[in-house]
């Protein structure tokens, strides 16, 4: 029973961090109507930024993230403004030009990182990396708990941004009806660029929070892109609350799978959920299937 409880809690905490990453993807999906395949790759870039700050200046990832987030925000803003947006109206044979472009951009970053840091596995050991809290028989890793707390703070902050400020409302309005938002005087390119930046900054935050828990290598991004998409589908596109609940459910399912099935198959669990949703819940997916 203790194992079960611990597994659930561990997954729950993990899910909170996943949610932050997924919200980034949801925002981008909502406003720009594209799936950012480079999402995980750019998260990886943020992790390396934190890693570099940790090794050179000894900054803890929780502090370094406040450097990584503005960096990624800038990268995201520039990418949307000068690259992804440009191909939006190009008439192409392959319909998913923008999506393929995010993949290509992601690969560029992976290879840049590989050139600089090589393919080696890295990790960040902080003073409390291996500390645990004990509740009865259950042990809960301290860095996970702290990461979860910070993640929730981000989710809450974002929720306030989206519901209480004109900028946040403009983001939601653009996602819901682009033309109507233009009528209201919203500069769609500016909003989409800022949204892409914001999405990337959230991915960066998620990456920094994962850093004390995960090994780091240049190809770490792909599974996270997939996880973010699965969470988005679980929670329904374009909603913070949905992404949060989707993230928590996903985290717990993954954690249960790792403990009760096999640790190697941890990443497959998400895919199985994805398949099940696809096969048995097509109603909830209508927006996904028929654009």
């Amino acid at each position: 029973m203790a194992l079960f409880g611990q597994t659930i809690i561990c997954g729950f905490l993990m899910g909170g961090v996943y949610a932050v990453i997924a919200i980034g993807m949801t925002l981008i999906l909502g406003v720009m109507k594209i799936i950012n395949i480079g999402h995980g790759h750019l998260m990886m870039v943020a992790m390396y930024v934190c890693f570099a700050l940790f090794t050179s200046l000894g900054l803890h990832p929780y502090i370094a993230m406040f450097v990584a987030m503005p960096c990624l925000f800038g990268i995201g803003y520039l990418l949307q403004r000068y690259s992804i947006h440009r191909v939006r109206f190009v008439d192409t044979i392959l319909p998913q030009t923008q999506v393929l472009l995010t993949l290509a951009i992601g690969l560029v970053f992976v290879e840049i990182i590989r050139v600089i840091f090589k393919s080696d596995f890295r990790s960040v050991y902080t003073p409390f990396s291996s500390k645990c809290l004990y509740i009865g028989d259950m042990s809960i890793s301290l860095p996970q708990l702290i990461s979860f707390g910070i993640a929730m703070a981000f989710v809450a902050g974002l929720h306030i941004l989206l519901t209480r400020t004109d900028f946040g409302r403009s983001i939601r309005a653009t996602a819901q009806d682009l033309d109507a938002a233009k009528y209201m005087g919203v500069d769609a390119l500016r909003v989409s660029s800022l949204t892409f930046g914001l999405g990337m900054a959230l991915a960066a935050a998620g990456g920094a929070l994962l850093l004390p828990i995960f090994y780091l290598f240049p190809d770490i991004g792909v599974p996270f892109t997939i996880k973010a998409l699965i969470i988005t589908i679980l929670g329904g596109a374009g909603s913070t609350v949905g992404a949060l609940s989707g993230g928590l459910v996903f985290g717990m399912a993954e954690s249960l799978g790792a403990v009760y099935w096999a640790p190697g198959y941890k990443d497959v669990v998400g895919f199985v959920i994805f398949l099940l949703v696809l096969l048995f819940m097509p109603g909830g997916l209508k927006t996904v299937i028929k654009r």
Partner: protein
Amino acid sequence: MAKKSWFLPAILGIVAIALPPFLGGYFQHILILVMMWVAMATGWNLLGGYCGQASLGSAAFFGLGAYGAGMLYLHWGISPWWGVIAGPLLAIVVAIPIGLVTFRLRGGYFVLSMLAVCETIRIIFLNWVEMSAGPLGIVIERTWGMEKLPYYYMVLAIAALSLYVVYRLMKSKFGYYFVSIREDQDAAEGLGIPSTKYKMYALIPCAGIIGLAGAFYMNYMAFIEPNTVFPLIISATMILSVMLGGPGTFWGPALGATIFVLLSELLRAFAGPVIGTIHYLIFALILVLVIMFLPNGIAGEGDKIKRLFRGKKPVYVGGE
């Protein structure tokens, strides 16, 4: 739908058959890679370029083809050459349920779901050690030792077969239906085209061709492991080749694959020793630039490229 005469292909064919015996081993190796990627890009183009279902997970079929061949040897000691049958077969058998599920998705969701499929298969092959030997991989003995020429003719035949299959398909009802689905799925349904069924008809030869290339890879390289046959970069390279040459054109993917392999070897030869993996970075950059400025590839944007050199204004057909 290619309107090229038979003349150029015939010359190319004769050169491809007659020239290699006079080349050194290194150049033969490069030509082998060229032909392998020609087959794979042509296969990807069938589903992605003609039918419009750009898949980010086609490495799955490559890996399945390779493992189809490798596991014959691993479990029963059967010559992996039988893999040219078993490999594509395995790829197709796995492709069918994958297609049935993922074809329910459209656009970017399909692209990403195929990536998820490929990742899943990679993880399964890594972890299911009894089946696949896991991360250790499969090592076989090469049939012809260090000799390259027989391998070359083998892969030449595979490339020619894939081109022939795609050519015949595109000349027939299938071709018209594939392109109709790409151009407008709703309109296609309205014309009585069962789109999911025809996507499957495009997927099956696509998986077969790529699987065949994978089976060849097993025989030629004599070693495979999940991380070398299932990675994203293989899928991405297929996309790059097709996008570079021209998606939805007959010769485009072959052209793109050729340019890709030659450039890759050049970069590896010159830049490789200096900065490790920089040639991958250059590829990724090329991919970005191609998507941004030549989204329809060299063959698809022929007019645009000509204009660039001659400085002529575009000519619009029809109009007013």
